[in-house]
């Protein structure tokens, strides 16, 4: 593929902050799904049929007892419901906001089969967990001390979940985090309007509130510490590193201004005190078909970009973003174009001014270019073509990610791993939480066995 930029002269790129009045920005980055009030929650809860061996529970990666917690809400007990949720999924609050329920629990809901309208499980889960957060209560306590100390590396959903479960089982935890703040992509990645009001930080604080977890931020495995040290200094190690690298387009984007990695942009946006500070192009092209592409494009529109196009190389059914997410982008005024793959970046004066795409087609399942091209002029281009594994210590990998068994054990004795960094995962918050929980239970069993051996 050619790495030369086609030199066509366009007008000066239009990239600016504060495209919209503050009040509009505030509304655009406020809660996208306002919570249910008490009455709405009762009506929604009443629709639950309390199924036997409920399909929604099976569909939830963390196996929350959904019919039970909904019944507890219906009976006027949201705090008890929250405990039911958090016992299975300590990030039940975040999951209620970010899970693609339309492909998980709510898809399995028998009401979906009966009426095409599932019980609002996600919103009910939020109703209960919000009530607990508002109450300020801490329902968990550190377990009876076992004298063991486990290292958890990475304080994202997988790491926090594992640390919390270990703490309740009585193990001391040292939680190493490369960044300044815990919560991983909850804090730096998830779309702003899904988790406003600093929820990621408040939830992390709640989780750490169990006690017995020493959080060490600004410490990176590989840079500041080695796996070998961790293995000798701790009784077990859990790796929850996420995916820190990003895939490259391979079109020489590194040399150009105006081409940015969507995940990095989103992290900047998430950390901005005021979204108005963030500059966005008038015309924006987003390359990719997953959740990141959707979030990037939608948030670009909500920042005031006039013309936002997602370009994906296959058809809508192949997009990693659910239909609901695709429609969310579309109702936000994003145009989604299919069957186009990036061929070259158009630049002027070291800045991107457009992207040339080649039309594609699927032939016997393989994607080929037709030779025909299309130019999309833009002020900014974002790549959202997937995060990539990277920076892992020396252990067995599979497709670049860490290989684990059903208990999340890696190839190295005493080292477990979970979340986005492992092979065969779903790249969802809820899946990372489940990995952390299962790893903690496995570590606990292993330490107990070691004690009796």
């Amino acid at each position, binding site marked *: 593929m050619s790495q030369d930029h086609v030199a066509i002269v366009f007008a000066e790129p239009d990239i600016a902050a504060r495209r919209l009045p503050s009040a509009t920005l505030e509304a655009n980055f406020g809660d996208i799904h306002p919570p249910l009030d008490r009455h709405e929650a009762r009506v929604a*809860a009443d629709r639950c*049929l309390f199924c*036997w*061996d409920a399909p929604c529970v099976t569909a939830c990666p963390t196996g929350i007892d959904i019919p039970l917690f909904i019944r507890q809400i219906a009976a006027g007990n949201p705090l008890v419901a929250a405990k039911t949720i958090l016992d299975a999924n300590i990030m039940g609050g975040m999951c209620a906001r970010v899970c693609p329920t339309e492909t998980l629990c709510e898809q399995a809901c*028998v009401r979906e089969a*009966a009426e095409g309208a599932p019980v609002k499980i996600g919103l009910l889960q939020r109703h209960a967990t919000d009530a607990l957060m508002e109450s300020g209560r801490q329902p968990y306590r550190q377990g009876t001390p076992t004298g063991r100390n486990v290292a958890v590396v990475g304080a994202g959903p997988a790491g926090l979940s594992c640390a919390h479960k270990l703490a309740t089982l009585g193990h001391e935890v040292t939680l190493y985090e490369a960044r300044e703040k815990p919560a991983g992509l909850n804090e730096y990645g998830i779309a702003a309007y899904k988790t406003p009001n600093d929820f990621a930080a408040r939830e992390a604080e709640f989780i750490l509130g169990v006690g017995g977890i020493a959080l060490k931020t600004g410490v990176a495995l590989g840079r500041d510490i080695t796996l070998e040290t961790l293995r000798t200094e701790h009784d077990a190690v859990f790796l929850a590193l996420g995916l820190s690298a990003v895939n490259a387009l391979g079109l020489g984007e590194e040399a150009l201004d105006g081409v940015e990695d969507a995940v990095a942009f989103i992290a900047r946006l998430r950390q901005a005190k005021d979204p108005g500070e963030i500059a966005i192009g008038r015309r924006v092209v987003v390359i990719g078909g997953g959740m990141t592409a959707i979030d990037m494009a939608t948030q670009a529109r909500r920042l005031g970009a006039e013309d936002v196009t997602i370009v994906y190389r296959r058809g809508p059914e192949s997009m990693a973003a659910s239909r609901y997410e695709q429609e969310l982008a579309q109702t936000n005024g994003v145009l989604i174009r299919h069957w186009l793959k990036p061929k070259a970046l158009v630049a002027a004066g070291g800045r991107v001014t457009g992207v040339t795409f080649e039309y594609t087609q699927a032939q016997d399942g393989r994607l080929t270019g037709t030779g025909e091209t299309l130019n999309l002029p833009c002020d900014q281009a974002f790549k959202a073509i997937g995060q990539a594994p990277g920076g892992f210590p020396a252990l067995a990998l599979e497709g670049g990610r860490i290989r684990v068994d059903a208990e999340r054990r890696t190839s190295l004795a005493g080292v477990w791993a979970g979340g986005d960094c492992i092979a065969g995962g779903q790249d969802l918050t809820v899946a990372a939480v489940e990995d952390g929980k299962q790893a903690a239970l496995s570590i606990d069993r292993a330490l107990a066995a070691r004690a009796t051996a």
Partner: protein
Amino acid sequence: MADLSVSFCGVKAPNPFWLASAPPTDKAYNVERAFRAGWGGVVWKTLGEDGPPIVNVSGPRYGAWHGPDRRVLGLNNIELITDRPLEINLREIAQVKRDWPDRAMIVSLMVPCVEEAWKAILPRVEATGADGIELNFGCPHGMSERGMGAAVGQVPDYIEMVTRWCKAHTRMPVFVKLTPNITDIRFPARAARQGGADAVTLINTITSVMGVDLDAMAPWPPIDGQASHGGYCGPSVKPIALNMVGQIARDPQTHGLPISGIGGITTWRDAAEFMALGCGTVQVCTAAMVYGFKIIDELTSGLSAWMDEKGYASVSDFVGRAVPRFTEWQHLNLDYVAKARIDQDLCIQCGRCHIACEDTSHQAITREKDGKRHFEVIDAECVGCNLCTIVCPVEDCITLVPLTEGVDPRTGTPVGGRRTWMEHPNNPSVAAE
């Protein structure tokens, strides 16, 4: 178009839907609104004897049982009879009857249990031009403690006595309104007939406590920290009322006695059910209080459409039609066998039928087939109890289908026979013969 008009004990009305004696019929203002809306008649809010009117509480007089969607499933009240002066009520009754001559105007009465009291009030009511009177022997709170209402209605001898006085002192038809707060409703109904009643009206409200406030540790809703029992009505009392109506309709001693049915009637279908079990008219209170008088449009249009479809030209064509099929348990056919059938195309896989039958009934519904979630009835275990059809959230997905031939795989008994308990070999009295 079906003819909805009725003549009930000689009282004529354009339709059988009357408003029960209660707040909707408390004064001319409400009653005129009801007539404008299309109600066939009213039973005026119960009048007491002349003198200072009774006093109601000025706190919550109603409590309700709500479904989660705030639908009112049941209503409780501690209101007494009218708290307006007798003279004003009588003047308004006369005026409304004059302005609406085609509508039924029944006046509900409750005065002390002495003949003089009834003798005094009856001519004054008659003078209003009202079509009839209803004796309120039902009110379960406030008045009963003063020896009126349910205190009379619970003693059949008193019912008979007061009814007789009224028949002696007025030419107007006398309806006797019965309290359901009694063990066997047939006794007060028989007493009313003995006393010469033209009709019985039932049910009045059922004594109730709506709930307990667990913070205040007091029954709910409270009046200044305390609460008394009240009277319960609305949709949830309908099954109780239907039974009582049906018992009176099929009792040989009261069979044929006109009945005005009350209790939870909300739609035309509720009304038609009461009428099929023997009611010549029906009365409504809670539904009007919850939804307003406009519900009359649904009641009349619904009943009329159904009658047209069934070919009933007038209301009398179907009143009492279901009574012959209302019987006692010992007359039911024990050789009749029905089995539950699950329509697999409609099944949404909730598993409620399985767990209900498994945990609490007869272990007659599978949970799995070829390693997959699958619910199917096992005929050799099913007793046809109907629990699964009740818990199934999908209409018509589970039905009870009678067996018409062969043997019941559960008992090995051939189907198609007809043995009641009276003929059954397991009945000791049959075996003794």
